[in-house]
């Protein structure tokens, strides 16, 4: 019962945040809405016993990435309202058409029943999502993907430096 209450509250929070993100005119409100979604998801993770993922969610997403978003919004200027005019002719009609086609297709697939979901004995075995268990997996079984992820970070930082430190004059002279 308590799990249901937590799910409903956190789920409603996540949905409300997501709607705010899309509908708010002011970018700062959008960012705050996203923050709400991220926190609500973290609560859901905790209720699934995935403590590590929840901690990462709060520290990395709500902490670091949201701060970055807010910085960018502040730098660009908070008083700018987004220009919602169409840049491609017929964009809105096309988008509605695609959404309608997608809805018809998914409705058909749903009714045809090939996506029917029959739970066969899953969820009986509790998964240990604690920080210790995650750490042991990460540094033992998953050590190679873990190291490859560090390569990804090198690529990202090299790319950022290479693209940002651009001096057009100098490069052309050489």
């Amino acid at each position, binding site marked *: 019962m308590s799990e249901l209450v937590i799910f409903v509250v956190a789920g409603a929070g996540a949905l409300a945040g997501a709607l705010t993100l899309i509908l708010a005119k002011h970018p700062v409100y959008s960012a705050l809405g996203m923050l709400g979604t991220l926190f609500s998801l973290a609560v859901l993770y905790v209720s699934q016993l995935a403590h590590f993922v929840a901690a990462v969610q709060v520290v990395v997403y709500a902490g670091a990435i949201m701060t970055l978003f807010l910085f960018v919004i502040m730098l660009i200027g908070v008083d700018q309202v987004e220009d919602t005019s169409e840049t491609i002719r017929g964009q809105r009609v096309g988008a509605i058409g695609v959404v309608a086609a997608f809805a018809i297709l998914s409705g058909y*697939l749903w009714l045809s029943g090939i996506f029917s979901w029959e739970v066969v004995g899953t969820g009986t075995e509790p998964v240990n999502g604690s920080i210790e268990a995650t750490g042991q997996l990460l*540094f033992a*079984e998953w050590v190679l993907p873990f190291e490859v992820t560090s*390569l*990804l970070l090198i690529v990202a930082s*090299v*790319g950022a430096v*290479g693209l940002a430190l*651009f001096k057009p004059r100098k490069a052309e002279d050489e």
Partner: protein
Amino acid sequence: MVETPEISLVAILPELALTVGAVVVLMVAVSSRRAATYLPWIAGLTVAATGAGLIAQYNDVAANGFSVSYAGMIVLDNQGIVIRTVMLAAIAVALLVGWRYVTGLGTRGGEALSLVFLSAVGFMLMASSIHFMLLFLGLEVGSISLYVLAALGQRAKRADEAAMKYFLLGSVASAIFLYGVALLYAGTGSLTYLGVFEFFSGDTLVFSDGLLSAGVALLFVGLLFKIAAAPFHSWAPDVYQGAPAGIVGYMGAAAKIGAIAALLRFVQVPFQSVIESIQVPLAAVAAFSVVLGTLYAIVQQDLRRVLAYSGVSHAGFLLMGIATGGVAEVQVLFYLATYVLVLVGAFGIVSLLEGSGSAGSPIENWKGLGRRSPFLAWSLTVFMLGMAGMPATAGFIGKFGIFTRAWSGDLEWLVIVGLLASVAAFFFYLRVVVAMFFEDGDGKTPKLGWPAGIGIGLTLVITVGLGLYPTPLLDVLTAALG
């Protein structure tokens, strides 16, 4: 108590060598004022060390057979070694013919060089990975490096457009691929190739058929995007046209090597027992790519767009071999090896004519090159004939092998489509040859340095040599993979 998995350094030796090379390049580029004089030596040493790593791997496999390490993440076998060797050859030729791209970037040359090495690490990991997460990480390391390489050139409008398109569409493709992995995991409960194979070949209850098919489809779509197979090719022409000429050949080659390596393993292990279900869609994509690539290439007015659309049709030919299942691995690898080298060589010539940071190369510019620079004109002619599949070039042997396998694999209609397209393709491959030798023009006269000369010469020797006498390589490949 943490149980450590089996750590096998020899399984990742080439990747290690390239990573160390990339890091050393970065350190030297930052700390030394005379970095430009050291970079060629570091690049050469890195390539040599990677080659030595591959030899060590080959000896290991010869002595102990194939081995799996890192808790079932990576396999060390001859197929992976062959693909990594192709990758290394592509790097070597690309750096030789495109070295001016690295020097032309000035202080950012170090970044470009290290990104070339790191992208190769990513795509090499794709070739030996037998785990979907590691495959995805390899794909991302490789792809993101290529996005940056596409954007590192001079700030021209068309180059920026190309880089942006490549980045956005590539990211979407990666997301699709990852979605496929997630659905596959939801459907099979396994992330390893072997686990998925056991799931499909066992009589496990499939509790959500649609979910699983959607996952497999998304997985393939993500990779088909990377090899620019139609209808997932729309990024290719603009990127091939707009990205810096000195590196775009390598970009196309590296992405194709990594994704084809992964697709080949897909049909060999995880999806082997359901090959009948995925054969038809794969063959359809192959046919569509071959036809569309050829037809669009005919109407292009820019050599780089011609090469892009021909790349679409080559992706189709490679898929033809993959659609037969795991039986055409030797032919697919031979085709892949010869095609990527010719691609890198051809773009090397484009960059010599147009400048290493240039965007676009109208056929106009090639008029009269036969008189201004006979060596380059003849080289490009050979490359074009090689891509078209002219007898006495490696391209013919590659196409012939794939057609034979597809024919005996009950894909006769696909072979007929491929044959017709190959004949039609001669038209656009020969058009630039006609422009170079039979039409007058007073465009630029390219300056050919010795590194580019060696690179193009090597590619020429391989293309013609393997066309006239392919038996040794085919024997080695058959022995290694058989």
